[in-house]
Structure formats: C-alpha cells, structure tokens
C-alpha cells in the first residue's frame, strides 16, 4: 500500500482556485519534492495533507489514515503525519527537551521518563544532544529547525511533511538542516517536501512534482524531471532558479 495517495483534490480560497484536480501517490520510504513558483499551490497542497487546510473535493490517504475533519480522526492522522514549518514554530516558553516531550506526554500519554528518553534519542539523531535544556531563542535558526524536526520525529510518524524548511535560514545554516533531512531519508522515512533547494531535490528526492497554476504540471523521477523537462513552463522555471 502506498504511504500517500491524493486523488482528485481541489481547493479554492474564495474566488481563487488554488488546487485543481491533484493526483499523486508515493510509496513508503520515498521522498517527494514539490517545486514551483510562489503561488503555484505547493504549500497549500502540503498543508492539505495533514488537514491544516481543508480540501473542497477529492480524497487524501496518508500514513494509513483517510483524511477526515472529525476532530478525533484528524488527531489520529496527525499523530502519524509530522510536519515541519518554515518558521520552526517551536514553543518559546518551553526548553528544547520540553518542546519535544510535550506531544508524547499529552497525546501518547507516555510517562515523563519515557518521553524524556525519547526526546534525548531524537535530539541525538539531529545532533543536538547538548541543547536539551536550552530555550529556543538561545539557538541559531538552523538549530531551531533541527529541534523542530526532532519534535516531529519523537511521535514516530509514518510520513513527514516539510514546508520550505530552509527558506527562513541564512545560506550558511541551510546545510545542517539539509543534512539532517538527508539522513532521515536514508533511514527510510517517507517524506514530502516543498522546497526551493533544487540541487537537494535533484539529488535526494525520488519523485519531483512541478506545480504550476494549481496543477501538477509535470511529475517524474527526480533525475528525469531535471534532465528532460517536457514542458516550456518547467524549462523556464528551472532556468530561472538554477
């Protein structure tokens, strides 16, 4: 069974049609990169996958859950689908350790000791073991983003979504986040990312979808898509970004 199946998804914001009949599927352990210009609908599509935005038509199945907006069903889906945001969105009043422990304690109802052990484990995975007691505002942007990845990882999700996670970072800090994501991909995590990092998408993603005007304009294995763009729009997009 695929880890992600999107079929016939459409969405509009008022009079603006942002997604038009989107169809996608992704196997377990694969990475899908969504690329395209600003406003092409790629972030909206990603946010629809864990119910942060509502779809108007179509179906989404992700991490073994059919997307539904009933609160309890949506919470169960979100336990299995992590998301990392452009602005990190760490909780500023909690230490790094407590940021990570919050969901395992409240959602999975783990005792404190078990949640702490898990937090230390995932912090080690992103290489920030020594930051357990630091507050978010004591960390660099790259470190904060790695903590945000660890926070999602602590829930042991089936699928992880990444919404332009390096776009807010200074260029010298993007590398550490990309390496963390690459390691995650190698460990077999199913990942969907919206990204402007073309070289990362080309070298790490299995499938790349180019979105244009609310549609999936082209979708192909990463190497083919970049080497042989079939449409004029993608050719123009690639020449403007590379």
């Amino acid at each position: 069974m695929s880890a992600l199946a999107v079929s016939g998804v459409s969405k509009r914001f008022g009079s603006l049609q942002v997604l038009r009949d989107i169809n996608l599927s992704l196997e377990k352990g694969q990475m899908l990169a969504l690329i395209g210009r600003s406003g092409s609908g790629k972030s909206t599509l990603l946010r629809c996958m864990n119910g942060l935005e509502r779809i108007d038509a179509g179906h989404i199945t992700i991490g073994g859950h059919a997307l539904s907006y009933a609160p309890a069903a949506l919470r169960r889906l979100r336990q299995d689908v992590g998301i990392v945001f452009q602005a990190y969105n760490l909780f500023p009043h909690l230490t790094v350790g407590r940021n990570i422990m919050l969901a395992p304690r409240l959602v999975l109802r783990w005792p404190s000791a078990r949640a702490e052990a898990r937090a230390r484990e995932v912090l080690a995975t992103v290489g920030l073991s020594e930051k357990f007691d630091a507050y978010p505002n004591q960390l660099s942007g790259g470190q904060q983003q790695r903590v945000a990845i660890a926070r999602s990882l602590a829930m042991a999700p089936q699928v992880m979504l990444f919404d332009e996670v390096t776009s807010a970072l200074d260029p010298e800090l993007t590398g550490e986040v990309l390496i963390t994501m690459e390691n995650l991909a190698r460990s077999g995590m199913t990942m969907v990312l919206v990204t402007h990092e073309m070289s990362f998408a080309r070298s790490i993603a299995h499938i790349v979808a180019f979105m244009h005007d609310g549609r999936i304009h082209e979708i192909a294995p990463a190497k083919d898509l970049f080497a042989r763009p079939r449409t004029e729009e993608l050719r123009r997009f690639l020449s403007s970004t590379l």
Partner: protein
Amino acid sequence: MTYQFQFGAVFARAELLIDGFLLTLQLTVLTGLIGLILGLSCAVIRTYGPRPARMAVATYVEIFRNTPFLVQLFLIFFGIPEIGKTFGLRWLPSPYMAGLAALSVNIGAYATEIIRAGLQSVHRSQVEAAESLGLTRWQVIRYVILPPALRNVYPALSSEFILLMLGTSVVSVISVEELTGTANLIQSETYRTFETYALIWVIYFALALVLKGILDAIAARFIGRQKPPPAAAGAAHA
C-alpha cells in the same frame, strides 16, 4: 496662624486602623484571585468559545467596563435585594459580600480584556504546530497558548492589581470598614480630618509599593529567567 498637627488622637485608634488595613488586604487578595479566575475563564471563552458564549462574555465585559464602579456597587448592594424582594427572595448581602462581589466582577471584566489580548498575542503558527502534533483544542490552549499569553500580559495584570487595591477604598461608601471606612469613622470621632486621611494616604502608598515589589519579585522568579520570546518565532537568528 498655625495648624497644630495632632496625630496622637489618630494613633490612639491604631487597632481600628490595623483591622481596616487587614480588611483592605483581604479584599484585595480575594478579589484579585476571583477576578483572575473569572478573567482567565472569560478570556478563554471569549476567544475560543462557541458564538453565544462569546457574545455573553463580550456583553458582560462591555457593561462592566463602561459604567462607573460606584453605580455597579449600588446596584448590587441596594438594587438587587429590591428586585429579589418582589420575587419573594429575602436575600440581603452584607456590605462586605456586596463589596467583594462588585469588586470581583468589575476587575474580572478588565482582566478578561487584558488576558484576551495576551491570547491573541500568541501567533497562529504556534497553534498550527501544536495541532499538527495531535494535541486537542484544550491541550493547545492550556499548554501552548496560555503560558506565553500570561507571560506577555503579566505587567498589565500586575498594574491592574495595584489599581484594584486602591479601588477597594470605594466600598467604604456602603460602610465596609476597610482602611478608608475606618478612617471615616476615626475622623468623625476625633475631628482630626487631615491627620487621619494623611495617615491612610501614606499607608495606601506603602502598600502599593510593597505589592509592586512582590509582583516584580514573582516576575523575576518565574518570568525573568528567560528573556521574553521574540514576537515571531521565525525571526531569531543567533
């Protein structure tokens, strides 16, 4: 012409003054606690509750913030028992209970607005992050929104608390014998009007300073350890 200051007559009634002072303190602390709980609940309902509940809270807040406290006090102390009588209820609040109730609902309305501003200061992205981890609505409010919200409005809440303490003096008009009420009594017995009011004036001032010191110490202990978080989580680059 010279005025002969005679504090002696006032000091002779120090025991009365101490009782009054203690009642002022008691009214302040009780009202502060009730007002805080009321404000917290109403702010959460006003922000996240269902529409009818939001409207009800908004009405309460606007009514109590846009009418004089003295009139609210009279309504509760004199007015409500009158209405009760026509329905056969023989409820007569003591001046103390009426004062406590009026102060509490009044401060509750102000606290609601202050705390609501705090809730709104927590960025939507925080809520999205928490919901995306599978937290329930209530867990998001309790663990993600309220702590930074209260931290953000703590200075406003603590100055409101000082204003509340000073405001307790008004309930002396319905003969609650707190500090001002006691002073009214003493000056009518001793005719040392200036001395009496000057003395409680100093006591109020000292109490305000002490309370402010305590509130600042609480802030330093629980909030000062960490710098206030940047407004936008994404803005921090070390």
